[in-house]
């Protein structure tokens, strides 16, 4: 399997070199039959719809990095083509290239057989290609209508908004979508924003749609509806290229799969229905599918440094979590009643900010060694919740206590000194800062105890020593403690941050989106570290919009929706479907 991919990579590479100058019109003919036949597919040979987007031998080089290495990919008319791979495998770069945002260093892009050269996204739009970004790239303060209209080539100089809105209605009808044109986009949920982005793409008469992780921020129900919309569009003749990490949804919606690993396409256009999730997962991590070990569930005692070897088992956990095959918990929900002073306790915490209620009467109590997960679609108050818990933001009413002492209204420093550590979701701007040196990032909280001889002075030698110790014990790959924090990859930075917080031996640890944007190995490292820390008796609050992650790690789970806890489940009662519908606000406000 892997060999096939390698082989194909090589052949396309040779082709590229051989056919750089000659007449290009021959090329699609010459190897159109090769593509589908490359591995399994025997059923497509004749009567295939024509290729609408053909990327051939695309290489994209950034200073010092070869992000895409001679990748070839063909999407047929009405086909749903899944692109999978780890973070940093080059998927986004490839898609940006197809959407005209980046120019390839070498290689050819053809639309309906005609070679094209995009110098801007508008060129790609003119060719019928539109991209829906993971973060949607909408202008938050502008209205839904303005976002759809923005940049559209046919827009008149004077905007008659009522008339223009009527012109978009047919697109919405076709998608079965209803939108309130006047609302500012910032007030929409992620699912609604995505609809706006889709309508925007189709309003421009896009025939080739590129979707970057379209379901990443959706509730299970919203995801299902999106997949349905995708099928309908494909039936209409729209070609769809989409990136996803979620193998079940890929298998349910995609016709073919292309797998990328380290900038190369290790498997192209595999038929989606014939392949097992394990095989894809193994290709994604660059392993050999045949020998991929189905390893035992990770145990709580495994040390973080072993994570590398664990990564493959982890790759499957998202798809398996429904079956709850992994049981990492150390304490069961039937553990003894909470002691008199819980490590972290929230009492009817309410937060109002910017004229809106962000948190509504939240109460929560953590026990030592307990890992409590908060599930929810992001933007439902999670950020506010962790900020209040860590003392970053003061609640409007209610109280927060750490280790039994009421710290409401106190500074983040008091929370820290009471034994609370917090790993913020914003690694480059809050939990550390891009321009700080690694040593300074590590000593963000240690600096107070690293006193020099003179009053008020800082022992700078101790700063470097502490930094070196933590960098080493948490296996951070770095280029010296004086290097800027920006030089670390997301995974290594997260190791640094987690390492720093754990080095303070916290009684309470709050982690927010701990694995967002991390590759499998780093993700597994984080999971191991969290499990280990819980086993040591630290109370952990895990807030994440990745439902699989919360289900896999938590001893107890709460669902957050519009600033409230709308459901609570002990581990033995985890029910993915019920949690999913609570996340979407479908079930009424069930009393926790």
């Amino acid at each position, binding site marked *: 399997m892997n060999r096939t991919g390698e082989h194909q990579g090589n052949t396309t590479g040779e082709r590229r070199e051989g056919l750089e100058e000659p007449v290009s019109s021959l090329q699609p003919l010459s190897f159109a039959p090769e593509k589908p036949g490359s591995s399994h597919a025997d059923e497509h040979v004749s009567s295939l719809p024509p290729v609408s987007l053909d990327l051939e031998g695309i290489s994209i080089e950034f200073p010092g*990095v070869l992000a895409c290495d001679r990748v070839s990919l063909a999407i047929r008319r009405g086909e749903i083509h899944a692109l999978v791979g780890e973070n940093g495998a080059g998927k986004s770069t490839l898609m940006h290239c197809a959407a005209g945002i980046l120019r390839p260093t070498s290689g050819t892009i053809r639309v309906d057989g005609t070679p094209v050269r995009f110098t801007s996204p508008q060129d790609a739009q003119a060719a019928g290609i539109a991209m829906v970004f993971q973060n949607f790239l909408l202008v938050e303060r502008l209205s839904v209508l303005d976002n759809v209209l923005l940049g559209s080539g046919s827009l008149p100089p004077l905007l008659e908004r009522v008339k223009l809105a009527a012109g978009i209605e047919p697109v919405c009808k076709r998608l079965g979508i209803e939108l309130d044109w006047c609302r500012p986009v910032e007030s929409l949920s992620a699912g609604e924003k995505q609809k706006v982005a889709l309508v925007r793409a189709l309003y421009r008469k896009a025939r080739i749609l590129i979707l970057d992780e379209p379901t990443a921020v959706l509730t299970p129900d919203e995801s299902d509806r999106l997949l349905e919309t995708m099928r309908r569009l494909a039936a209409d003749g729209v070609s769809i290229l989409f990136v996803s990490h979620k193998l079940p949804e890929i298998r349910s919606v995609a016709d073919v799969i292309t797998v990328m690993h380290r900038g190369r396409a290790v498997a192209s256009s595999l038929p989606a229905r014939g392949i097992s999730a394990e095989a894809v997962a193994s290709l994604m991590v660059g392993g050999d599918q045949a020998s991929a070990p189905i390893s035992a569930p990770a145990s709580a005692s495994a040390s973080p440094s072993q994570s590398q070897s664990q990564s493959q088992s982890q790759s499957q956990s998202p798809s398996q979590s429904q079956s709850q095959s992994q049981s990492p918990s150390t304490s069961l929900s039937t553990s003894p009643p909470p002691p008199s002073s819980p490590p972290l306790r929230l009492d009817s915490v309410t937060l109002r900010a910017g004229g809106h209620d962000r948190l509504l009467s939240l109460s929560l109590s953590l026990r030592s060694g307990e890992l409590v997960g908060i599930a929810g679609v992001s933007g439902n108050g999670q950020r506010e919740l962790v900020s209040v818990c860590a003392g970053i933001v003061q609640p409007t009413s209610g109280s927060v206590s750490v280790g039994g002492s009421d710290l409401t209204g106190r500074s983040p420093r008091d929370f820290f000194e009471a034994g609370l550590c917090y790993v913020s979701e914003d690694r480059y701007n809050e939990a550390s800062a891009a*321009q700080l040196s690694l040593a300074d990032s590590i000593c*963000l909280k240690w600096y107070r105890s690293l006193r020099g001889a003179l009053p008020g002075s800082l022992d700078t030698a101790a700063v470097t020593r502490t930094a070196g110790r933590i960098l080493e014990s948490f296996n951070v790959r770095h280029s010296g403690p004086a290097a800027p924090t920006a030089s670390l990859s997301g995974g290594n930075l997260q190791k640094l941050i987690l390492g720093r917080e754990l080095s303070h031996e916290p009684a309470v640890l709050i982690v927010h989106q701990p694995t967002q944007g991390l590759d499998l190995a780093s993700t597994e490292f984080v999971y191991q570290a969290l499990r280990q820390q819980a086993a040591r008796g630290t109370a952990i609050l895990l807030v994440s919009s990745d439902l699989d992650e919360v289900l896999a790690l938590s001893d107890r789970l709460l669902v957050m929706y519009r600033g409230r806890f709308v459901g609570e489940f002990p581990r033995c009662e985890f029910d993915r479907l019920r949690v999913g519908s609570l996340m979407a606000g479908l079930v009424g406000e069930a009393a926790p």
Partner: protein
Amino acid sequence: MRLLVEPRLVQSRVVRFGAPAAGLAFGLLLSAIMLELFGIPAPAAYLAIIESGFTGGLFAISDTLTVATPLILCGLACALAFKTRLWNVGAEGQLFLGAWAATGVAIALLPAGTPGFIAIPCMAVAGFLAGAAWGAVPGFLRARFGTSEILTSLMLVYVAAHWNNYFIYSVWSDRGFQMTRLFPRESWLPRLSDLASSWPGAAGLTLHAGFVVALLLAALFWFVMFKTRFGFEIKVTGISERTAHYAGMPVRRNIVVVMALSGGLAGLAGMCEVTGVVHRLQENFSPGYGFTAILVAWLARLNPAAIVLVSFLLSGLLVGAREIQPSGIAMMLQGIVLTCVVAADFLTGNRIRIVKDAARTEAP
């Protein structure tokens, strides 16, 4: 073929010092062109500046160092604020108020005949505190309400100027002239010419003790910035306020403290100027030291040693420009040079390559 701009991953020493130097050279060239446009012979003007600012013997150097004193102090004031990413552009106003307070102590508060070792420290404290108060106001407004300190600190310059005028023209006016009476001799800062009795060569040298104070404060600035926990907090706050707050640093308090210290340093500069140089309070005693200091701090990249050096160079310009008319020349030269050096900064962080055809820009 097109130009590709990409971040420089490694900044070599050549680039780090070469780029600002190139910016400086280009700025001087551009300024020369501007001067010629206004009908002022540029080479003559430059020579006059160099002669009276630097090469004109002991007197020139003494004058230049005298002017460098308030520049160093205000430069440190600006650098401290800028390091915290607080744009204190009102050092001029803080300098005015420092001068005002020192004057008040010298001519209105202390009885005549107070010995210098009491009077001068009292004036210094008063000058520092007045400047600190004037700096703390924008700091407090920024910390408490999030009001832009750029605008408030600048507005307060105009307020301070009118405040001083009230005293210069009215309350402390010397027989109706637009100045106060001379300070009592005891409260003048000691200066080199005081040594003339034992060393005749020192006669007429105006350099005063404030210069030594400025150098000591530059050293203290270095220590505080790089070797103290407060300095660490300042650094983190300047890079990211959110990170500092996250780490439990008292961000709001530090904003007020930094603005107050910054104002205090500028106030001290004002005190030095009135007790060391003019020995009275009058209008226009400062040729915009507080504004030039912004330039000093930026050109020196907020480094205290470089602040001393840049202050010396710029004060040569200020001293030299006194000799040539019209008076705006110094300001224009400063502006053009700053603009060019800021532009040259781009070259230290990025490099420009000529490429055939490639990915459009840096990684997303």
